[in-house]
């Protein structure tokens, strides 16, 4: 049994919160930097130019990429041969508290009805998974509200099939138009139950832009649907253009014979995530 001190978790989470909000991951960074050349309209080009400059500024200065530094969403895989010396959930929340406090990040967590801010961006949204081994893997996503608000879960009739999935996703993106700060990334969860599809959609957003689905059928579906999304012409900031979405990933699992759960999780271009293994 390997022991990991809770203080180590606190530090790792703190650092991830700060780093994620200043440095866009290399895959999305590349899409933004290459984006201007792929557009024809001057307005679309100008949006990409501003976003590229914004990335440089956030790297060079102390300013976060976006003022909405998100709710902290964490996927934590805990090896079954690891003993955490301390309270794991409390350590993660303490890491978020320190990261958002010491990193001058915006605290966006509030009471649903009174809207009173919790003051330290906790509680974080934490998903645990027990895995073989003696390591702890933590993936963090700083999830902004604007794009999250455009996300939906839909319990389709099984007969709707892939055509029904495509129609729902396309209509969702079309209705969202400029709201989620396109160019967007799209995470799709199919199957499982109501809540499981939503979790799968979020996990799909954790995949890199150039990651190819190991299931050839799903890989083909991802390419097909991304192509269709980009035919909508919404473009960067909804001002028209070729790049409405930079990536579309699908995670799928079996479901009940009566159901076809579908979750569409929308992520803005300010896709901020980090991963660490302890």
């Amino acid at each position, binding site marked *: 049994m390997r022991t990991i001190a809770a203080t180590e978790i606190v530090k790792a989470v703190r650092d991830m919160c700060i780093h994620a909000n200043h440095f866009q991951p290399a895959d999305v960074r590349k899409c933004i930097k290459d984006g201007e050349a792929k557009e024809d309209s001057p*307005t679309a080009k100008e*949006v990409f130019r*501003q*976003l590229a*400059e*914004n990335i440089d*500024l*956030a790297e060079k*200065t*102390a*300013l*976060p*990429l*976006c*003022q*909405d*530094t998100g709710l902290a969403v964490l996927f934590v895989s805990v090896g079954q041969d690891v003993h955490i010396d301390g309270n794991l959930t409390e350590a993660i929340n303490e890491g978020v508290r320190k990261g958002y406090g010491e990193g*001058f*990040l*915006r*605290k*966006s967590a509030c009471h649903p009805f009174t*809207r009173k*801010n919790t*003051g330290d961006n906790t509680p974080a949204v934490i998903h645990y998974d027990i895995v073989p081994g003696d390591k702890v893997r933590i993936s963090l996503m700083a999830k902004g*509200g*604007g794009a999250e*608000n455009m996300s939906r879960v839909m319990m389709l009739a099984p007969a709707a099939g892939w055509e029904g999935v495509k*129609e729902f996703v*396309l*209509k969702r*993106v*079309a209705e969202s*138009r*400029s*709201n*989620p*700060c396109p160019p967007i990334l799209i995470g799709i969860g199919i199957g499982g139950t109501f809540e499981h599809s939503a979790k799968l959609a979020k996990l799909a957003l954790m995949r890199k832009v150039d990651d190819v689905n190991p299931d050839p059928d799903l890989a083909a579906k991802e390419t097909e649907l991304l192509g*269709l999304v980009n*035919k*909508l*012409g*919404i*473009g960067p*900031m*909804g*001002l*028209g253009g070729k790049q409405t979405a930079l990536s579309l990933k699908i995670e799928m699992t079996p479901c009940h014979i009566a159901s076809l759960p579908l979750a569409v999780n929308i992520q*803005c*271009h*300010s896709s901020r995530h980090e991963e660490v293994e302890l």
Partner: protein
Amino acid sequence: MATHELKAPLSDADARMLRSGDVVYLTGTIYTARDAAHKKLVELLDQGKELPLDLKGAVIYYVGPSPAQPGHVIGSAGPTTSYRMDSFAPRLHSLGVKASIGKGIRNDAVKQSLKDYGCVYFGATGGAGALLSACIKEAEVIAFEEMGPEALRKLRVERLPVLVINDSVGGELYVMPDLKAVGLG
């Protein structure tokens, strides 16, 4: 599609001559307010109380900035999604507010109020919070401090780059999604 250098507060004539697609560099005084501050402002109006800002010609920036680091006047400061302020905007326009800055589509009532009162809706680039922050030279919380990022702030901006999305004559810059192209039209 013209480019203008304009002063804020915005004059009625300036607001009315703008057209969708125009690029505007705003210099002067603007105010920040988002969900909670709007709710509060409308409550004050309902109670007949005095507002903490002068609405005449006012430009309201929908933003909840991140905290300022030492040596900075403000943190990252890009626009938030505007539709959440749709229920408040027409009333504010009727009282003198000339423009709002945000991102994302507005409803028909807001677009109608732009026509009724000669106002505009500006879009700033969502997610370009670091870039836009550089145009903010002074920032001061003038009300609702307890709201943290949602507090009402007075900003002095220099050449803040915005785009006219909706103008006072019914112009619209956001494109309609091409559902026909994907067989759903």
